[in-house]
């Protein structure tokens, strides 16, 4: 059984009867790789991420997540697979603002996912720099702190793969850098796989591999160069 964390084969997604937002995308992400997905606004980055993560279903092609074909999986089974094997960080609106930091981080576990003990929770909060803030309602935190809560929630179940959609889009460069280093550390330390959408060359520079989308098609797939070369690549792709 092939358990490559993420595999897409001829992936396509169309909204309504409009043009294809995603077209003929095939790729495989091996374990322990940090992939950045880049492209102009509207090029289909979020759509690709949603389809790979099982948050949306493709109109064409197939997706395998953590070794399972999810293309035809029933919604409840797909949800359990996501809960147990994948983590998510979105650009904004990541958290239930009425719950505390700890409760947000424990959400996947409380929703029936892998159990998390108090020691593991404390260690995770320390690792993301939120030690001692577990009982604060997230409504009271700064943007950077909230995004670290989201990262902690994504990592706490030790998923095979973490999907992040512009996780630093709403943060200043310094705070954004901290969040990216957290993801990078998870890749180095635990061999976790990360698929991250970004339009910021500095953010993408933390990755191992760069995917470029244009009008829904995969037009580039390379080892990640340095930030200035990424900017040049983006200019060519656009």
């Amino acid at each position: 059984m092939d358990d490559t964390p993420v595999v897409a084969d001829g992936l396509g997604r169309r909204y309504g009867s409009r043009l294809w937002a995603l077209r003929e995308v095939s790729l495989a992400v091996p374990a322990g790789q940090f992939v950045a997905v880049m492209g102009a606004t509207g090029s289909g980055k979020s759509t690709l991420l949603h389809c790979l993560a099982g948050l949306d279903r493709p109109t064409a092609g197939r997706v395998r997540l953590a070794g399972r074909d999810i293309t035809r999986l029933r919604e409840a089974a797909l949800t359990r697979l996501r809960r147990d094997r994948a983590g998510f960080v979105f650009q904004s609106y990541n958290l239930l603002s009425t719950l505390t930091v700890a409760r947000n981080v424990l959400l996947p576990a409380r929703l029936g996912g892998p159990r998390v003990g108090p020691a593991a929770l404390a260690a995770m909060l320390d690792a993301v720099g939120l030690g001692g803030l577990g009982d604060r309602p997230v409504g009271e935190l700064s943007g950077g702190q909230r995004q670290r809560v989201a990262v902690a929630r994504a990592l706490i179940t030790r998923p095979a793969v973490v999907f992040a959609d512009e996780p630093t889009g709403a943060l200043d460069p310094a705070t954004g850098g901290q969040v990216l280093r957290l993801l990078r550390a998870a890749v180095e330390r635990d061999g976790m796989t990360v698929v991250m959408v970004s339009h910021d060359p500095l953010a993408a520079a933390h990755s191992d591999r760069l995917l470029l989308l244009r009008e829904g098609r995969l037009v580039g797939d390379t080892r990640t160069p340095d930030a200035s070369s990424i900017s040049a690549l983006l200019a060519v792709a656009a």
Partner: protein
Amino acid sequence: MRAGIAAQALRAHRWAFVGPASTQLVAAVVLSATLTVQVSVDGAPELSEMLTAFALIAVYLTILLVGVTMNAAIAQQARDVALLRAVGATPGRIRRAVAVEAAVVAVPAGIAGYLLGLLAGWAWLGTLVDHGLAPAGARFTPEPLLLAPILGILVVTSTVGALIAAVRPARARPAIALADAATRRPRFTAVRLGLGLLLVAGGVTLSVSIADLAADAADDAALFVMLALCVGVGLLGPFVLRSAIAVGRPLLALAGGTGRLAADNVAVLSRALSGALVPLVLAVAFAAVKVAVHSTTTHVTGRTGPAAEAWLDYSGTAVYCLFAAVAAVNTLATVVVGRRRDLALLGLAGATRGRVLAVVVCEAGIVTVTGLVLAAGVAGVTLVPMVHTALGTWTPYVPPSTLAAGVLATAAVVAAGTVLPAALLTRRPPIGQVG
């Protein structure tokens, strides 16, 4: 409890459940009072029969109004539901959480309402005896066993209303549900359109076909005409509201940017506001039909009905209208509470509190006018065949002063559900509301 954390997340929005809870309280009061008085006047068969009819109407109204308010409360939480789905809540778990939450709200409201209803029933029975409608010997007999059916009706309708609102957010792919919640795109599906048209057509057909029935039977059936038309109007609400805006835009443009902003807001909120149209139109149409039947009779024949009977008829109608008005206020307020972030953003974008409230007043105006036009239509469809058969006239008559009072009362109900909560929500500086 398996629904645990998801139910907890829903419950954290405590303001969202004030509306459904108070509607359920009123429902329980009405049910408890009518049923208790019905049991108490056992010896007077005619009155007893009338009260049975009252109680039945109260049951139908409860099913509809409790369902509508709970539906609105859950619909406001689509964003959190979508997030819970994304991080691992299965559709089944969301449905369980929603059902648990709806039931948890219903039980205390039902018990408190039952007890208050005993008090109301006791007072009501006294008035019935004073008016000579109930035998002087009628003794108030509270019936503890009534609590069970009242709670049952509340819990079931609350849960069903909530589950209907949760169908789509629970089942949708999380990416779509998040996009839906973010854009609040008014969805106007073919099913909704078809069902709405079917109910309106059914209501009109029923109204025409009952015109030849005896007055008593026609009276009972008229209720179903109104219920069908009101639910139909609620289903067609997004379409109706957007048409109303299209028609009224030139007028709204006179109010400048405020008017345009209000028009845009109502268009975006058209689906959420449709829920509030159901009780609003019901309350106004109900009152209009009752008043018009009496005043048209007087106008055409120059005779008035027996005072005691008219009093009973009016007092019953007043109770139902009050009940529906409470539901309308609650549904509207639930929608306003759900958009406190948007209101705060208006403030951050440079609008003064006065300007924000002016926009809300404009929106309330749109809803009031739309509600009045729809209510006039519903009342007309119900009334015209009725008065034509009974009195041979095609034109129901309502005294102008009564009409004006009705318009003012409707505006007051809408304002109580929109302007009042908005004024309360904008008291604090906007920045705290945005996170």
